């Protein structure tokens, strides 16, 4: 009824203020529609698979050292790779930072990376680099068993010391592990199990099917199960050491142990994106991240990755946790070639067995 009159009530400002407001509205409306094309010299965009609290101090140190401004967003490995693949014809970023090697070998097969060998490339052992320089390791991250201390006590258990220990009926519906469809942790776990069974696939899958009965939930991300284990909502699981130790640092009472048959480890990598708009800045970040410059910052920041560069020593407390652990090497070439098939078999025979 009187609606027509209402807007008029708002028009009692002086002309000047009305124009100011209009200008403000116009600029507020215009800003978001501008593309992300503004590129100051010495700027760089990255997706980080490392969690924000690990990546941020690293990126800030790089900005300080290089004068290059870094913009980054964090995604889980699967999401980051799906984005990089979808953006192939119009790359939004220059560098994919962090994340397990299997994500990078998958990206390599999609042709999304630009080969680049940093000065440190030659110093690294073979498992820490692609032979053409499509990706390079910046850290190493072994898997561990992590269990809730109160849960162990309640069931009168020792921390699991063999793969077979996880089959104990006391763990029925009480283990949380990552889903192989999204998580690099899960893929590394499955290849660890294969390797621990001397790559006898049928034996490894028979084991995983038995283990399935004890799985309460398969989580989307590798670290996703650590909180339930910390809280005692779950009894335990298999996680990367970086997630397990972070859980302990947060104050949750958990045990870390290793299977005597051995467990796998994933190199954490970095790669240049094909068609990157800031190629030179991207190369500088890779130079820095693969060198002792960055990796010697891991320990002071309480980031529990093992440095990949042979010249950087692991933090003593981290080395202490790993003492006596048997880390088995996963053959990345074989894993890369069989990845898709193995994951599909896992989905069909293990995930959907329940």
């Amino acid at each position, binding site marked *: *009824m*009187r*609606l*027509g009159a209402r807007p008029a009530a708002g028009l009692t400002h002086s002309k000047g203020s009305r124009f100011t407001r209009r200008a403000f509205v116009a600029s*507020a*409306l215009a*800003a*978001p*529609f*501008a593309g*992300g094309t503004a590129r100051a010299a010495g700027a760089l*965009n990255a997706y980080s698979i490392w969690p*924000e609290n690990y990546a*941020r101090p690293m990126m800030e140190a790089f900005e300080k050292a290089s004068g290059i401004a870094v*913009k*980054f*967003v*964090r*995604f*889980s490995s*699967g*999401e980051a*790779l*799906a984005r990089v*693949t*979808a*953006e192939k*014809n119009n790359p*939004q*970023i220059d560098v994919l930072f962090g994340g397990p090697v299997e994500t990078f070998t998958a990206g390599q097969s*999609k042709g999304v990376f630009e080969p680049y060998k940093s000065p440190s490339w030659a110093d690294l052992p073979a498992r820490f680099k692609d032979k053409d320089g499509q990706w390079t390791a910046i850290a190493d991250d072994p898997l561990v068993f992590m269990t809730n201390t109160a849960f162990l006590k309640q069931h009168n258990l020792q921390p699991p010391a063999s793969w077979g220990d996880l089959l104990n009926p006391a763990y029925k*519906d*009480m283990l949380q592990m990552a889903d*192989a*469809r*999204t*998580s690099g942790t899960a893929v590394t776990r499955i290849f660890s199990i294969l390797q621990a069974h001397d790559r006898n696939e049928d034996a490894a899958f028979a084991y995983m099917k038995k283990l399935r009965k004890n799985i*309460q*939930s*398969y989580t*989307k991300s590798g*670290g*996703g199960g*650590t909180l339930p284990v*910390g*809280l*005692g*909502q*779950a009894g335990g699981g298999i996680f990367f050491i970086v*997630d397990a130790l972070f*859980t302990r640092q*947060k*104050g*949750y*009472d958990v045990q870390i142990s290793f299977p005597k048959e051995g467990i796998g480890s994933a190199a954490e990598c970095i790669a240049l994106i094909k068609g990157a708009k800031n190629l030179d800045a991207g190369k500088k970040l890779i130079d820095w991240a693969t060198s002792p410059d960055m990796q010697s910052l891991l320990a002071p920041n309480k980031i529990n990755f093992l440095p990949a560069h042979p010249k950087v020593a692991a933090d003593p407390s981290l080395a202490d946790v790993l003492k006596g652990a048997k880390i088995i090497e996963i053959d990345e070439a074989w894993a890369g070639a069989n990845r898709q098939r193995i*994951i599909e078999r896992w989905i*069909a025979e293990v*995930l*959907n067995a*329940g």
Partner: protein
Amino acid sequence: MAAAVTARAPAHSDPFRMGVIVVLWLLLGLFVLYPLACLLGRAFSDDTGFTLGPIVGALGNPTHLRALRNSLVLATLVGILGTAAGFLFAYTVERTDMSRGAKRLIDLVILLPLISPPFTTSIGFVFSFGPRGLITYHLLGMQNAQVYGWVSTTCAEALTYFPLGFLALRPLIAAIGGDLEEAAFSLGGSRWQVFRTVTLPLTTPGLGNAFLLIFAASLADFATPLILAGNNLPVLPTDAYLQITGMFDLKGGAVLSLLLLVPAGLVFFAQRYLVERRSYVTITGKIGGRAHGAGAAPLARLLLWANCAALTLFILYLYGLLVYASAVVAFGANETLTLDNYRVIFTEGIPAIKDTLIIALIGMPLGGLYGVIVGYLIARSRGIGRHMIEIVSMINYALPGTIVGIAYLIAFNDQPLVLTGTATIIIACYIFRYSPTGIRTTVALLQQIDRSIEEASFSLGASSLRTFRSVTLPLILPAFFAGLGTVFIRAMTAISATIFLVSINWTLITVRILENMTEVALGPAAAFSVFVIVVVLAVTSLLNIALSRMTAPTQRVSVGTAS
């Protein structure tokens, strides 16, 4: 104002109306059909060209069929439970002598699930009902209670989505003229008879709408199953999401989402059939008072109150948990009070907060306007074009958000229209995905308004613009505000589609919450959630104040829709 057109003039004789329809189709084509076509192109092509291989493969795959069946059963259960709860609350609020304070509390509590990021209910469930759950273990002393599976997924989704039903039903129940019920009483009907033969049938289109909204929301939800479904309840959206994000299998995810389209479409058409079969005009232009608590008998009223109170308390408890988790160092381990989590979100989280607010504030008015215009065209025009608009405008809502996100990513990453990395793509996604609430509300309101009111205005000599502005617009204003609210809320809380659209330049709070959760940083995740809730509450309160101020004069002509 763009839809300021006559209700009965044929479309071709009205250039203004034609202009609106042309622009609308351009937008629908660009932001609904084109991305979908790009997605289908991916799903149905390989190096050799067109192929049916993937969809045939999916239909022959028992795993996918099981996920389809689970999705259908879950969405049906959630739809029924959610509609029932929505009706319970709407009826109780409108038809019992509830005190103003209690109504206010219910309005607030019912908003909570709607305005919080999608994980909050699930997280509350995990904390409450797991093996060490606050309720199952600490309160009831149960050993090894399992939270993952059918029961908690169904309940958590019903809790999350029943407010949609409440929002759809409440204006309808309020709009049922009290004179009809009173007439039934004076004819000797018992309270139950009146409820069954007058009130309930009159709300049937609303119940259909509510069920459709909740069913579709559940069908598309990936966040709740992602956390609560566990191992034995694979559903299509989660599987499609995992297929794409995890297996890098865009094609497989697209095919799974196509399976989802079938039930979403079927429910949509069933609901339309239901609504169109009968006429539900209750606002006749004659003076009729609002019902004043005549609806429910004392005993029924007590039961209604008790049920509402129990549910309200449970929701409050879940959100109490959230606030608590935001204010301690590490929930369940180190429960020292701290403001650290809030310090984190107001330092590291500032870019996400700023981006989210800008996007929400731009998307809100555009989405509200779009919803009302489309709703008006659907309810007040005839012919095939109307059905086409209705169907196309629902597509992005019915599709799982993940698929909409991926479709946008594919469509707008290449020429001719590169939008990835901009806010435009996110805003467009919100408008075309979340305005159907505004559209449905507009349609539902207009279906109750007899065209004769508008026609009376013409015959009294008013122009079409004047008629629209002084008759139709005030009637659909509540729908406009509902649309505004929904788009703002979704812009602040949605994740499934936008997780693929955020970029280096524009990121969102919900994505940061998901990241925080996967990083076991529950404190900042909870603090972000509390922040979102506070902001949305503030903005929706302002909207409500504006709405009540703007509609106050219209109530004198007995439009009981605005409360």
